[in-house]
């Protein structure tokens, strides 16, 4: 019984995850136990229901979108590797990482990747563009029925008008980056994981 779980956390596995995500050894083990505690089905993967049990996500208007971000397209299970890969987006950027990451490949927690993660929360149909409809849907999630459709529409129009630089009436990732240029994404999209 349970040979799977113990193999999952073999040293090599941890090393690989470490390399891929930049988490430390203890962070991985700790997150692993968190993972297993979320895993009510006890099959080594998490389902959407597992995520929805987290109160923060349950009340979050965009909770569904966030949960979605954990799941690769077309699947409704995520294993520990995938879980860690998503979480790695939220790892704070450390000081010593800042200067050296230009040389090697970009880590998952870089600014661009953080932004990409956020971008995909809004990009419902995954076509690398946030269209007006997608904005409207997300807005609807965020404000409920308190604002009339017409006004929501004008908000969405306005948002696109602000962000859109190439006139295709949608927000591309580059435009998204541009919009959030002055937002301290590194800080906002970081969770202090335990070391």
């Amino acid at each position, binding site marked *: 019984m349970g040979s799977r779980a113990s193999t999952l956390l073999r040293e090599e596995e941890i090393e690989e995850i470490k390399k891929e995500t930049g988490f*430390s050894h203890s962070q991985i083990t700790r997150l692993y136990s968190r993972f297993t505690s979320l895993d009510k089905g006890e099959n080594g993967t998490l389902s959407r229901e597992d995520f929805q049990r987290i109160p923060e996500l349950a009340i979050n208007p965009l909770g569904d979108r966030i949960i979605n971000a954990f799941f690769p397209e077309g699947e409704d299970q995520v294993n520990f590797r995938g879980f860690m890969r998503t979480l790695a987006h939220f790892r704070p950027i450390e000081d010593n990482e800042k200067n050296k990451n230009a040389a090697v490949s970009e880590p998952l927690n870089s600014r661009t990747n953080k932004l990409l993660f956020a971008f995909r929360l809004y990009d419902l149909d995954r076509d690398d563009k946030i269209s007006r409809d997608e904005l409207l849907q*997300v807005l609807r999630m965020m404000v409920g029925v308190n604002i009339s459709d017409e006004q929501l529409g004008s908000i969405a129009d306005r948002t696109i008008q602000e962000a859109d630089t190439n006139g295709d009436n949608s927000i591309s990732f*580059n435009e998204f980056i541009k*919009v959030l240029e002055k937002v301290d994404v590194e800080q906002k999209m970081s969770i202090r994981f335990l070391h």
Partner: protein
Amino acid sequence: MPRKRDTASNDDVDIEIDIESSDSDDGATQRRTNRRQGAGRGGAKGRGRGKKPASEEEDEDDEDEAPRGRRGANKKKPTKKRGGGDDDDDDSEDEAPKRKRTGAAKKKRGGKAQDSDEEDSDVGKGKKGKKGVGKKGGKEEEDSKGKKGDAKGKDKGKDKGKDKGKDKGKDKDNDKDKKKKKKKDDSSSDSNSDSEEEESMSEGEMARLMEEVEEKKKLIATIRNKPWRMKRRLVHLKEAQEFVDKFEGALGKGKGRKWYAYKVMMKKKWIKFQRDFENFRTACIPWERKIKEVESHFGSSVASYFIFLRWMYGMNLVLFGFTFGLVVIPEVLMGLPYGSIARKTVPRADQDTAQDYSVLMDFNGYCKYSVLFYGYYNNQRTIGLLKFRLPLSYLMVGIGTFGYSLMVVIRTMAKNADVGGGDGDEGEFTFAWKMFTSWDYLIGNSETADNKYASITTSFKESIVDEQENQKDENIHLRRFLRVLANVMITCSLGGSGYLIYFVVKRSQEFANRDDLGWYEKNELEIIMSLLGLVCPPLFETIAELEDYHPRIALKWQLGRIFALFLGNLYTFLFALFDEVNTKLEEEESIKNATIWAMKEYYANYTRTFNDSDSTPPPMPPADIIRGPCWETGVGVEFVKLTVSDIQVSYLTILIGDFARAVIVRFLNYCWCWDLEAGFPSYGEFDISGNVLGLVFNQGMIWMGAFYAPGLVGINVLRLLSSMYYQCWAVMATNVPHERVFKASKSNNFYMGLLLLILFLSLLPVVYTIMTLPPSFDCGPFSGKQKMFDVIMETIDLDLPAFLGTLFSYAANPGLIIPAVLLMVLAIYYLNSVSEAYQNANMELKKKMQMARDEEKNRRNNTDSTNQVMKDLEDLLPNRSLMPAAPPPDPGKKPEQDPRQTKTKPGSAGRGVNLQRDVALASPNPNARGPVSQPPGPRGAGPMPGPGPGRGRGRGRGPPPR
């Protein structure tokens, strides 16, 4: 069995995450408790699960033990490694080598192990335990645990997973039930300390650190050979030595290791403490949550009133502290008690009614002769054992009140202005930012979430209003005409009401000398004033509709206009007051003579009746002494009465105007002819302008009255405190948000400006009375002096050394004062011009930044002309331009993609952009051709709206040309 292990370790993880992810915003505490509950639940479950099989079977129990051991081993490893480089080879999960290794380690370091007063039943194990303790840096938890474990006789159930694992075989014969219980007990505390220890260092860090230490050591050794300057060498040497000192301990060399572990632990604790403290401080901001709640439902404009109220409360609290600490309490504690002298006694004529409720409510009777008012204070120079100079302190506090208020108001204004200037150009991506960044993802409490929900909605509404304002296509001439018209009308009505007030005041002066007056004539002034206050604000509001300003600006106009109207109120009040004071001053003269005469008479009578000219007569009973009108107390009573009636009126207004109305609308709606909620009465809106002005004028009353009635400040503090709760409740319970929720300006400097104006206006009469009017001869701390400020002169003469007195007299010389004033004027002028220059520089910089942004935008849009090199490359590879469209992140695939690919792609994107930019900078102005011929527009400067931009973007994101 791994399941059990996992669940067993749930606790620590959850708890740790709790602690770690705490954030200092307002939701933090709730969130944390929430999570902790979750953790508790999880933990309980886990434990329960772990327990079940254990109680079923003994073998199961052993199995249970094993993974725990392994887990412990996992966690332990870093520690081991830290313990010494020689243990690095041990990577396998196998238990045998571990046993060997620990055995060896024991031998090696057993001697070194620090002594602890645990009782050990098993020596070997005990040593190990001790070693563990030492290794872990002597943590207290660890110690206690060791004790616990030893008390049981075995190390087995302890957190030392390795020991446990190893002992498993040997200790099978041990009583299982104990073990089980133990394990359960320990699982929580163990895990805590386990993870805490782990926190201190991980494997990778260890290795890195060791490397670095080695490096530094090498540097120290070879620093002589470096071709550096001496200064640099010294700096490096020092750095390296410090580093080695600091971290060598971490690598397990001698005693430093323990010390290091201790330091690390303390550092972590300190950081955690700081975070907790930060949370605590946030939690300590009074009413923060209340205000946030109001803000999320009613918008920042209504919240700005409450913030202003809170600020006011803080300021008044300080004033209250001064007044009570330095004036009221010393007088109560050390001064003469009630009834000892005339000024502290109710006159005999009033004594019968002095305790009547109506009299007390008018602040007569006992109230008037109490510590609340000026007249009660004695003019003894010093009181009590401490020789407290009460009159001096009284004057100083009176002046200090104004000084402090001025300072605070002005400083707050300056600070607010600072904030306003900081982020001036926010207008760029308002909606996009709101859209993308408004939700706080760490909120875990549903109530907080609801509030956030409401506040996002509100902020969108606010932005919509702003936006509508911006996009209004207006007939500018018509609007201007209407605005001028509105202002003319309002000026007319203000002038009219001003004249009305003047007229009425004059009439009332005439009436004052006549007796044959009806009720109306007596109260004419008050009636007119309240009518004006009732009619004018709505009138102004109606007129303001014409102007069609943005609601925020409209609020300011409204505030300014009502302020002007209320100034009339103030003016009449002061006018009446000065009249009263003047008559009282005249009256006083005669009474003073009468008092002296009465005193003489009394003595004469005494001597005659008892025919005993030698013995001193007993003093006249203080209640019988004839006393002057004491105009200061009179003024104080007026102010207190005014304040109290103001409180009553405003509270009643809320109760009737808002609450009763809301109740009626809510409950009569079921049986009414028309829809009350949507129709005529509807619910009230929160009247921002009225409330702010009420607060401002109330504060003016306090400032003016505080000198004559020290108790007034206390009353005001109570009022602000209660009104905070009352109004918060009222606004949440009975009001509806404004139809157009608008955003308050970031600094509520406008309120502050009004406050400053009122402060000056109230400063004038008080200073005038202090400087010019003679104090009453028989009441108050300054009685018997020509002017109130003589107290200062007296102190200088009597208490300070003589040369200081002469110094002051020189300083008071006009010859010195005039140059000083000139100097100050010059300084103001200078500072003013400097700040103007800074402002200009600021504007320039802002413009430049805007230009830089525009330029970049342009460049990005017409990439075609930006980069010659890239263009050439693309020409060479005709298909390339199409390719980049493919790689852009396929969102669905991403999490499952090969990690390497995920990593390289964005990296290359970044490099692609960089490269492009770099080259663009390097080449001799490649832009020259493009934008010069055309004006730089936001886009479309390039000739191709179609494929061009697409290609540009694609290139920016795609892999760089190799």
